């Protein structure tokens, strides 16, 4: 039982971590709560289905193409829809909701409300300490780990990463220091959506693809990011681990209550916020301009 929880929890947390880090990045740098984030994840999954399954492209090509296409879509969305209303926080929230709804409807129109499946990249299963997992799940874990390490390297060791971290910390000062804040925001948006796309591509063979698949992860990601503290990447990863394990534990320890896992995760988020309003690692910022 314990091994089940440990391993399954790790897989779930990994996917959540990918989504949460992307979400947190764009919030930290541009103070944008991007509700469309998980909708990009959905579009990537559908793209892989179309390219890899319907059009028969080789798997690696479909994946790379899907990630690139969705990243471009994200950048376009940012320029056309989000940037113009950047100043009003609520307006940004609503336009991202509307955009997500548009993507959802486009998927419904294009593919119907049916559930679709993409074949796994690697078939079969493995046993690890008495726990049976599919090989696709293991592959997912590996990709997630590699991606997260890649993001960490980008942020810690490159100049762009430095610019991102600086802008996230204090936009005004970064601007004064000569960094082109708009460009940094654009790059960050690209990375953020790219991460969502990778998550979508990696998850597509694991789960079922349908036009409403963006709603549940959205709630969970919001819970994670808030729990970890908006704008803190460390917080996002740790939050993802916490929420991922809480959900998995709920499924295992309360088999009759496994539908409650979202509620439990959210309740934890609410509790943490009541005690510590800025999340675990968030910055308690005063009135910002």
């Amino acid at each position, binding site marked *: 039982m314990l091994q089940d929880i440990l391993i*399954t929890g790790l897989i*779930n947390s990994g996917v959540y971590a990918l989504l949460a880090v992307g979400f947190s990045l764009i919030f930290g740098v541009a103070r944008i709560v991007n509700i469309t984030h998980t909708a990009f994840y959905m579009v990537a999954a559908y793209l892989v289905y179309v390219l890899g399954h319907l059009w028969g492209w080789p798997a690696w090509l479909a994946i790379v193409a899907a990630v690139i296409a969705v990243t471009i879509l994200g950048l376009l969305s940012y320029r056309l829809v989000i940037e113009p209303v950047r100043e009003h926080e609520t307006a940004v929230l609503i336009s991202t909701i509307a955009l997500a709804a548009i993507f959802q409807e486009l998927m419904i129109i294009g593919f119907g409300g049916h559930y679709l499946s993409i*074949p*796994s990249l690697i078939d079969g299963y493995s046993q690890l300490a*008495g726990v049976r997992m*599919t090989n*696709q799940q293991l592959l997912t874990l590996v990709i997630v780990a590699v991606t997260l390490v890649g993001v960490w390297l980008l942020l810690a060791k490159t100049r762009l990463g430095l610019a991102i971290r600086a802008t996230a910390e204090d936009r005004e000062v970064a601007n004064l220091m000569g960094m082109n804040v708009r460009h940094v925001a654009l790059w960050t948006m690209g990375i953020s959506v790219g991460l969502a796309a990778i998550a979508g591509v990696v998850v597509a063979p694991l*789960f079922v693809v349908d036009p409403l698949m963006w709603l549940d992860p959205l709630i969970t990601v919001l819970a994670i990011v808030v729990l970890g503290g908006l704008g803190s990447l460390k917080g996002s990863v740790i939050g993802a681990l916490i929420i991922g394990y809480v959900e998995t534990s709920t499924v*295992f320890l309360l*088999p009759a209550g496994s539908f409650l896992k979202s509620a439990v995760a959210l309740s934890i988020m609410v509790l943490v916020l009541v005690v510590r309003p800025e999340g675990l690692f968030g910055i308690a910022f005063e009135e910002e301009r």
Partner: protein
Amino acid sequence: MVARVSPILRSWLAIALALIGGTAVAADPIRIAIIGPMGFIQGENQWRGAQLASDQINGKGGIQVGKEKRPIELIQVESNEMLSVSDATNAMERAITRNKADFVIGGFRSEAVLAMQDVAMDYEKIFLGVGAAHGELGTRVKDDYDRYKYWFRVAPTKSADLGKQIFAVLGTIAQELRSKLGHDKVRVAILAERAVWADPIVQAAQQNLPKLGMEVVGTWRPSAVATDVTAELSAINRANTDIIFTALSGPVGIVLGRQVGEMKLTAVPFGINVEAQKEGFWQATAGQANYISTLDTYAPVAITEETLPFIEAFEKRFGEAPAYTAATYDAIMLLRESIEATGTIDADELVAHMEKTTFRSAAGNLKFDEFHDPTWGPGFVTGLAVQWQDGKKVPFWPNGWQGVSYEGMQAFRFPERK
């Protein structure tokens, strides 16, 4: 005639046709509204079944109402019930008051149908249910007959009867398992989605299975929209399960199908798995769904003389086998039989007639009980059980159950894998 155009255009069309056509077209059509989630496969099937019936009937001139023949005019009404119950009630009222429907057929999602039923009963319109299994739709008829008598459930059989059917099939499977594997104790895991409709089935299973000589190793209740059941399956596998008893109606059914195959479990899933009834299930599970079995309504077996012609005509026209919501075909045929027998479209007279007759539908012999539900049992509607074998949905039950066997039944298969 199928009319899916705006009322204004429709009246212009009618005038034009009347001028051109003369007396033959002047006969007032019988308007039948097909209401359902048209964007989803259930609604699609409802519409297709109706189209097939309507075209067949209109091809022969229409329905004989007393002295004149009146054609059927179908109205497609999108209920949006999957996303909004209030939209569904709006749509029902729209169908009756704006589209002037004489009869309404359809409905799928139980909570929406319960609300839509109220609206239809307000207007005393006959509402034939094709899709929702909830028992309350029928108990309302018994409790408040004068108000709810206009409701009849054509398909599926009510959930309580589905429950009886499951245990009948389960008994058959367990018997085969015992003789095949040589051991007596069959170990069953219950995997039912967390939903009100599944609760009585779970309870019944927990009580009845031991009486049938089977051991319940555990009960798992994932969410209907769960995207991952590897955790549950891992635990089920560790308990050396023989049969996974399923009660699933949501997409979790697909996830189950896929992951059982990917994890190469030896346990065989059987029960209710609505997703597994669909043609697209094999693709949706990426070809991993071998051995998944479920209850179903239509299969290429001769349940009655109507079954095979219906299925062939449906497949020929739409390229796919009909799902159970295509029973709108049976519903319209039932209406035709009743109208022609009574010579009127008056609702009260039709109700009286439908309560008395036994109608030979493609799903079985339809006789309504005091709840206006289809009678379940040998000689009436028994339902079928099907299993996915190598990409095809194969019917395997009833095959000698209580003397009932339809031509075309095949054998159940157990997973041979480690």
